[in-house]
């Protein structure tokens, strides 16, 4: 048997491939992105980046109904977008096995909330699998396809950041080719007309009873008998943190955690003196156990907020911590727009214009941080466009002429288009800036309908933002290169002052794309002439927010390891104190 060192996401891709998956879909989102990236490398699998999670979900469900083994992966908040088909799919059931992967983000390393998607499994009444490490991700996904087909149900495989992004040793296998299942037209199953859905709801409830029984004997659940004075009930990553702190305790280790395996629980509780629940975020297991009438405690010890870790478990349960050195002073080092980032030109200008900015989800959310602080709202994917429209309808033209929505190209396709149609249809006057950097940047460069390539890297038709805006009814569409600072400011002023819907296409590729990096390598870097630089008294280049530029001994300093040789700092320096390396002015 071969061994590989895989992240949870890589293991999910590998396990799905081994299980014979035919169709895999996703919209990128941390911490889920690498699942589709990796599964798309297998030639036997059709893999696509879909425009959003709802479309991804529906494509995968369609493939399942058509007889294929299918999977869809997304970050936790993506499942909110796909919640509509999720609930319907519980009623329709599947044909080929269908696994939904939700990668949650406890600790909010790269997310806007800490929602615990285990609740979706219970809400939609579908089985929930919670692997703890890469090996389990690999094994559970294979089991997930079996459960899905056996019980005619979608299966929710729930990962968390530390499962998705930790690497461990995985025993891997070869692919088992699974033929497509026969397709039969079954209107009473797949058309959820009220009359059909009523019958399907009975089916769902009967299925849940069967799954509840099955959970007691599932190989994904086990009791590890140890010291019987303390029993720990846990699942997912929490199992590993608890095991680290209590290596000798007894464990009820749940991998198939909903419907809840009551018989197994009873056996465990009968065998230990005291039982506690250790789980991250929501008291999901604890509530199930209490609802069944057993007295256990969990959230009394373990916080609801933030990521779990061995020290949080130790502090919570034992009220102690390891002997250690005091924490050191860390300098605040928030993430920043990269050197040469196209968004710098937009946010620098929006700050200069003192604009009200409704923002969106992507790298450019960093425009909210100093030095720009050029953002007023960020809610969810697409909300920049609709928030601006709401501002407009609440406060009128005098306010709207100082307001813009900023949204990335990928996010605009994901859920900005409907908002733009709303503005035009309902006679709004907002300005929408589409930050077109030709890629889904934040999550590490995934293609989308506007980038001209698909998940396999093949050329595809490229969505034309100008034609789309015009088709929606926007009459004024502007194009700018955001690295031309003055020109950009002029266009922004004009678009904002126009009393009708306007779209500004800010067009420049992400500075981290390979072609851009190559150009950067060939360009000379910039240096500061310290005798000309007014430093602290000026701060002109510092306020660009370029990570390569800092203030050292009262003067501007450009770190050569970071500089990409763009000329934004030269454009803003009023004293010609920035030149190409090797020049002395």
């Amino acid at each position, binding site marked *: 048997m071969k061994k590989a060192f895989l992240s949870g996401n890589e293991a999910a891709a590998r396990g799905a491939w081994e299980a014979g998956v035919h169709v895999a879909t996703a919209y990128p989102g*941390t911490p889920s992105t690498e699942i589709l990236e990796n599964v798309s490398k297998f030639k036997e699998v059709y893999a696509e980046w879909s425009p959003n999670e709802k479309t991804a979900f529906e494509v995968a469900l369609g493939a399942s109904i058509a007889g294929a083994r299918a999977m869809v992966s997304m970050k936790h908040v993506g499942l909110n977008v796909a919640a509509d088909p999720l609930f319907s799919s519980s009623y329709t059931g599947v044909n080929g096995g269908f696994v939904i992967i939700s990668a949650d983000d406890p600790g909010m390393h*790269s997310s806007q909330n800490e929602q615990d998607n285990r609740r979706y499994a219970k809400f939609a009444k579908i089985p929930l699998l919670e692997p703890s490490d890469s090996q389990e991700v690999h094994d559970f996904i294979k089991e997930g396809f079996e459960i899905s087909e056996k019980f005619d149900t979608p299966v929710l495989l729930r990962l968390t950041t*530390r499962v998705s992004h*930790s*690497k461990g040793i995985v025993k891997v296998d070869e692919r088992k080719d699974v033929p497509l299942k026969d397709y039969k037209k079954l209107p009473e199953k797949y058309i959820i007309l009220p009359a059909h859905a009523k019958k399907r709801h009975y089916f769902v409830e009967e299925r849940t009873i069967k799954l509840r029984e099955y959970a007691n004997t599932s190989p994904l659940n086990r009791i590890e008998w140890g010291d019987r004075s303390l029993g720990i009930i846990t699942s997912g990553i929490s199992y590993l943190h608890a095991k680290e702190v209590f290596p000798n305790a007894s464990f009820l280790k749940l991998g198939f955690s909903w419907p809840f395996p009551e018989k197994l629980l009873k056996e465990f509780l009968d065998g230990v003196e005291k039982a506690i629940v250790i789980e991250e975020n929501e008291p999901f297991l604890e509530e199930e156990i209490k609802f069944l009438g057993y007295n256990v405690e969990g959230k009394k010890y373990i916080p609801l907020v933030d990521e779990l870790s061995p*020290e949080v478990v130790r502090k919570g349960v034992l009220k102690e911590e390891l002997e*250690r050195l005091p924490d050191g002073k860390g300098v605040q*080092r928030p*993430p920043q727009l990269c050197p040469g980032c196209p968004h710098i030109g937009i946010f620098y200008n929006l700050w200069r214009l003192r604009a009200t900015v409704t923002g969106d989800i992507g790298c450019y959310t960093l425009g909210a941080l100093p030095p720009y602080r050029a953002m007023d709202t960020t809610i969810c994917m697409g909300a920049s466009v609709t928030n601006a429209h709401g501002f407009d309808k609440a406060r009128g033209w005098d306010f709207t002429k100082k307001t813009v929505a900023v949204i990335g190209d990928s996010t605009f396709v994901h859920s900005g288009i409907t908002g733009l149609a709303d503005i035009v249809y309902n006679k709004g006057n907002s300005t929408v800036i589409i930050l077109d950097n030709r890629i889904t940047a934040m999550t590490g460069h995934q293609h989308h309908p506007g980038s001209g390539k698909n998940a396999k890297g093949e050329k595809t038709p490229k969505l034309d933002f100008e034609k789309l805006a015009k088709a929606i009814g926007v009459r004024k569409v502007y194009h700018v290169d955001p690295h031309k600072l003055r020109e950009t400011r002029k266009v922004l002023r004009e678009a904002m002052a126009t009393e009708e819907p306007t779209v500004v296409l800010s067009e420049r590729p992400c500075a981290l794309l390979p072609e851009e990096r190559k150009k950067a390598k060939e360009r000379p870097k910039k240096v500061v002439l310290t005798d000309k630089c007014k430093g602290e008294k000026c701060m002109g280049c510092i306020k660009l*927010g370029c990570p390569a530029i800092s203030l050292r001994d009262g003067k501007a300093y450009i770190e050569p390891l970071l500089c990409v040789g763009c000329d934004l700092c030269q454009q803003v320096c009023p004293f010609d104190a920035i030149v190409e390396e090797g020049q002395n002015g």
Partner: protein
Amino acid sequence: MANTKNIIISGVGGQGILTASEILALCAMEEGLDVKKSEVHGMSQRGGSVVSFVKFGEKVYSPLIEKGSGDVILAFEKAEALRWRGYLKKTGGVVIMNTLEIYPNTVSLGLDTYPENIREEFEKYNVKTIEVDAVKLSKEAGDPRTQNTVLLGVLSNFIDFSVDTWINVIERRVPPKTTQANLKAFELGRGVIK
């Protein structure tokens, strides 16, 4: 578990931390040990503070290093060493830090100050403190992007893996064009400790 070795690799997004931690983890695997590594992708890689935890031994459970259980901090940037001090074990911990200082814009904008006397901040707790000019040594090795390999070279003195293991994994993991520079960088780093 008590017999695992816990290594904290810290720095600033874009410094090659994830490659370094991958090489370390693969060395542990090659030595027949259980190994886990953990880091966070996404937002924090845009020039923010980045950390990767690598744990290896007979059996590793949690991928996270508990505060007070770290054996070595390998910092690619000076202030990013101090940030993680609380993770070191109380006695016998080691810190290896690059002398490179990268000032975040919070300092330039007057919102925060860059920590001072970082070496003393470790030495006053009797932490073995090693400073390395990895920028200089990487240039000596022929490629400024080999700073991470220089630092792995220094780290190799504190880990019981054979030199062949390191060399094999480095050869396997770095771009072929840079193999020679990386091997040289490793050797220069390893030579920092006499």
